């Protein structure tokens, strides 16, 4: 059943992405000031949003694991962090490409760039730590604790670096500005692409959760065989 849901979600994401790509490249005009490169926004910002949402979903699953000790919650938390990390990296790379064209530099130590990078480093540490623990219960317990620390820190990091230095463009999306900063046609494709990327993330999480659960089952069988021998 879960496999069918994953395939269905991936198929819906693919169809939506195909439509969005057509709209982006064939229907929407170039932006008046930035030219063609503005289209990277349709991937850059949704990837950031999906990444951020993912970290807080992982926080929820981590808290759920600690209260229920259900390994499915741990698998879900780990999968969500892994997929969110991929989208955070996509966000950094696409942002870097945009910055090279518009600002003339690949990177600057601006508030949002730095907080996004620190976020990637925190959750990269989470994945590295998971690999270093073999015992499943210990791995789930310690990973959940680290995820809680990481998510709380992300909030403080964002605020602190915002005071520190800022160069990143201000918000353009309607829910942050109250409207008027983005053409409605562009905003429409933006949210459709956000949905497509969210569906890709959900499909990937479902696949990774299944792999995590299978890996844990194989591991427990191996341990059982060891004990029997």
């Amino acid at each position: 059943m879960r496999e069918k849901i994953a395939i269905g979600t991936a198929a819906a994401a693919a169809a939506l992405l195909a439509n969005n790509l057509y709209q982006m490249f064939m229907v929407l005009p170039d932006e008046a000031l930035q030219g063609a490169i503005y289209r990277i926004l349709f991937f850059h910002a949704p990837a950031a949003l999906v990444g951020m949402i993912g970290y807080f979903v992982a926080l929820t699953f981590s808290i759920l694991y600690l209260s229920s000790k259900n390994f499915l919650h741990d698998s879900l938390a780990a999968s969500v962090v892994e997929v969110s990390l991929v989208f955070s990296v996509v966000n950094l790379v696409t942002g870097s490409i945009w910055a090279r064209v518009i600002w003339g530099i690949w990177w600057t130590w601006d508030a949002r760039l730095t907080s996004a990078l620190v976020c990637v480093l925190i959750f990269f540490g989470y994945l590295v730590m998971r690999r270093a623990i073999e015992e499943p219960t210990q791995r789930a317990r310690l990973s959940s604790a680290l995820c809680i620390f990481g998510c709380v820190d992300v909030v403080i990091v964002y605020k602190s670096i915002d005071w520190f230095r800022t160069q990143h463009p201000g918000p353009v999306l309607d829910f942050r500005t109250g409207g008027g900063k983005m053409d409605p046609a562009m905003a429409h494709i933006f949210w459709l692409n956000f949905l497509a990327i969210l569906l890709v993330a959900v499909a990937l999480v479902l696949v990774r959760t299944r792999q995590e659960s299978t890996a844990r089952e194989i591991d427990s069988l191996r341990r059982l065989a060891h004990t029997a021998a």
Partner: protein
Amino acid sequence: MKTIRHALLIARKDLALELRTKESLNAAGAFAIVILVLFSFAFEETEQIKEIGGGLLWLVFAFAGALIFNRSFARELPNDCLDTLLASPLSPASLVTGKALANFVMLLAMELISIVIFGIFFNVNWTRHIGELSLVFALGTWGISILGAVFGALTVNLRLRELMLPIIIYPLLVPLLIAAIELTKLLLSNQSMTPNDFLWTKLLIVFDVVFTALAMLLADTILVN
């Protein structure tokens, strides 16, 4: 109240042990001095050093601190001392807080040595705002110490423990280091604090309070299997 009393007992035990063996302090102190000497080759002894001095000092504290934190729980591994401590009436929260207190004292001692040497090597008078500087050092050091104790406990049984601790702890310390660096830079440059700079002090306090609360809340999860 009982937690605080138990935490003080643990801190006293750790500090007594450290005073006898001096293994963490010697290593961290020597490391800090070597780094400061290396910085003297990298940076000229000019006015610019006051601008970057805050950053240099806090990098030294964070790096040398990792040597102290790695030992803080690892020293309980031989003879199953950690299991004995966990089986005792001590709560995990008091154990973590006690370790953090011991880390705090050791790190402050190492910071005192480092700043004296920094003042001599780079010809910087750091005593002009000693009151404010002490407050910044105390707040920053408590934040590093509590996270060091928590993640020392979290990584104590892991493979590659020495490697894992810095990978996890440094990204988490970013907000604290930014605030501490900004304030130290300001005080070393002999400038007075403006209301805007109090934002950094508030950030240090928020960081300390939030992570101390989280550490006490999750100590049981981290230590008790």
